């Protein structure tokens, strides 16, 4: 088991380095790096000073090494717009995005799995078909448009919920969170639900498909032949089998939720990393873009690693082959 963890960690490190090369190449090599990294408003003296200090007069691989050095010490450049550390900006806004992402994922899981199970058990019932039809909507509705409609209904027409921003925050374990207050909830509900919709539909469909397939398997027939109650057949035999792929999907989708938050944050003006990214792209604040990409890639790699480990823990068939391999 330990060997497996070490091996996977090394693989992840390789991917991280590869990604850093790609990001580096994308930003520093494509287009004029001088324009990219130096504030266009700087005058000639500042430009030359910056070129020297950024090492832009050196060959590409040397620049990459400088870049790596900077990355290890946490310095990914200064934002043009805010004149502070780009990495610092990103990390400052990360808790807001994570809070949004976690809330959305929670909604999707708590609603999605039971609904999907029901739809899989009774696919031809009214409830089953309705659930599936609604899930298609959840899949098809573009996130940003749903966000707009939510604002239209709940903020403009009904006036129940605020249309933008994050509620007041409190420190929890050193991290500012907003879900501990009612006002914070009022701000969180709409964006979290908006973000959750896509994943909710996905989970419903996944659970339903898994359930339908599982029900056709021989072990279900055998379980019934043993005289087990329907509750046990579904709750233990079917559920244990379908949860394995579903858990892995949830893990992998979490990364995607963090990325999708970009759109939701833009619609609801939620002060997270995503909104910062869009603003930065529009303002051509490239150090921030680079910092964002590297942080997101790292998050993804960590998530993938955790999911892999989780999968090998959950599926006994994988566990054994690893220890024999």
């Amino acid at each position, binding site marked *: 088991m330990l060997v497996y963890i070490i091996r996977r960690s090394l693989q992840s490190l390789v991917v991280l380095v590869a990604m850093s090369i790609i990001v580096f190449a994308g930003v520093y090599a494509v287009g004029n790096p001088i324009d990219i990294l130096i504030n266009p408003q700087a005058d000639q003296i500042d430009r030359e000073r910056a070129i020297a200090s950024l090492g832009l007069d050196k060959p590409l691989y040397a620049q990459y090494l400088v870049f790596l050095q900077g990355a290890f010490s946490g310095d990914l450049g200064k934002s043009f717009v805010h004149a502070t550390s780009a990495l610092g900006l990103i990390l400052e806004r990360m808790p807001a995005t994570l809070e949004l992402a976690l809330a959305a994922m929670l909604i999707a899981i708590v609603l999605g799995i039971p609904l999907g199970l029901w739809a899989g058990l009774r696919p031809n019932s009214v409830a089953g078909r309705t659930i599936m039809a609604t899930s298609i909507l959840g899949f098809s509705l573009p996130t940003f448009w749903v966000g707009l409609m939510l604002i239209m209904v709940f903020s403009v027409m009904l006036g129940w919920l605020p249309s933008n921003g994050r509620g007041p925050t409190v420190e929890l374990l050193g991290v500012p969170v907003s879900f501990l207050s009612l006002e914070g909830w009022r701000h969180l509900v709409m964006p979290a639900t908006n973000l959750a919709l896509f994943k909710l539909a996905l989970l419903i469909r996944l659970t339903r498909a898994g359930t339908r397939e599982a029900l*056709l398997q021989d072990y279900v027939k055998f379980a019934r032949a043993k005289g087990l109650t329907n509750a046990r057949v579904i709750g233990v035999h079917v559920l244990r089998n379908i949860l394995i792929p579903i858990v892995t999907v949830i893990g992998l989708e979490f990364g995607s939720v963090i990325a999708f938050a970009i759109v939701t944050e833009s619609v609801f003006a939620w002060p997270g990393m995503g909104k910062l990214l869009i603003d930065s792209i529009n303002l051509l604040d490239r150090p921030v873009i680079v910092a964002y990409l590297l942080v997101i890639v790292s998050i993804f790699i960590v998530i993938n690693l955790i999911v892999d480990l989780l999968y090998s823990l959950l599926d006994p068939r994988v566990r054994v082959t690893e220890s024999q391999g």
Partner: protein
Amino acid sequence: MATLPDTDTDVARTTAPRAVETPAGRLWRDFVANPVAVFGLGLLGIIVFLAIFAPLISPQNPYDLAQLDIMDARLPPGSASAEGHPFWLGTDDQGRDMLSAIFYGLRISLAVGAASTVLALLIGLTLGLVAAYVGGRVETLVMRIVDIQLSFPAILIALILIAVLGQGTGKVIAALVTIQWAYYARTVRSAALVEKRKEYMEAARCLALPPRVIVFRHLLPNCLPAMMVVATVQVAAAIALEATLSFLGLGLPITEPSLGLLIANGYQYLLSGKYWISFFPGIALLCTIVSINLVADQLRDVLNPRLQR
């Protein structure tokens, strides 16, 4: 004791087989068994029709400045213009008839979605088939790239590409293609791997058919069902992604106003109650994507071998 009959002459006495049904015919029959899917297909047909014939059916050409009157701006649905013809869905901030703008917008959204899907399909299909057939290090390399790319969400890749390449229609399509080809490559390769092990492939190889023939005449048609499902879903995803990018201001330029851009235009008027500028283009987008997904859903159910008993 009666003698056993001579089997050769008696083969003809077996019960006659039922009329042969082509795979396409069976596919159609299974597909239309679900009324919801038929509805989806019908809706999609209408949308495509509207998109293709937009210039002929729109009451107004919303991009001909001569036809616009700024005095008609931001009128609610149902109001009439200065000349008397009705704006069924209202007007936007430039005085454009929303209905016409939507028809033209459908055109662009569908065109971009279809173009990027077709390109991505061709690239992904070729690479996937080659990877599966050739195997070895080529396959490992291609699939590694595919895996890494697919583990990142599409929107992120799109944003990175736009940030690096800049904006413009060609660049948006390039971004969409770059995102999508990986799905096709992976699907085709999985299907091809399964098919490769089947006996008809061994038979084809025994006949010493040239690889080109084996891949394109034998392997490819059997991978088509999986491809069809992925392609339909991906068209909808491409359209949605393009709309999202345009909404964020990073998609198509103003000269090619897709539905996403129309929605973005109306965002600022939402809070003042002028919902129709965002709402109706959104409904059009919704109908497009929903109808495609309905069709894709039924295709997937019908073509899934594991659900057929």
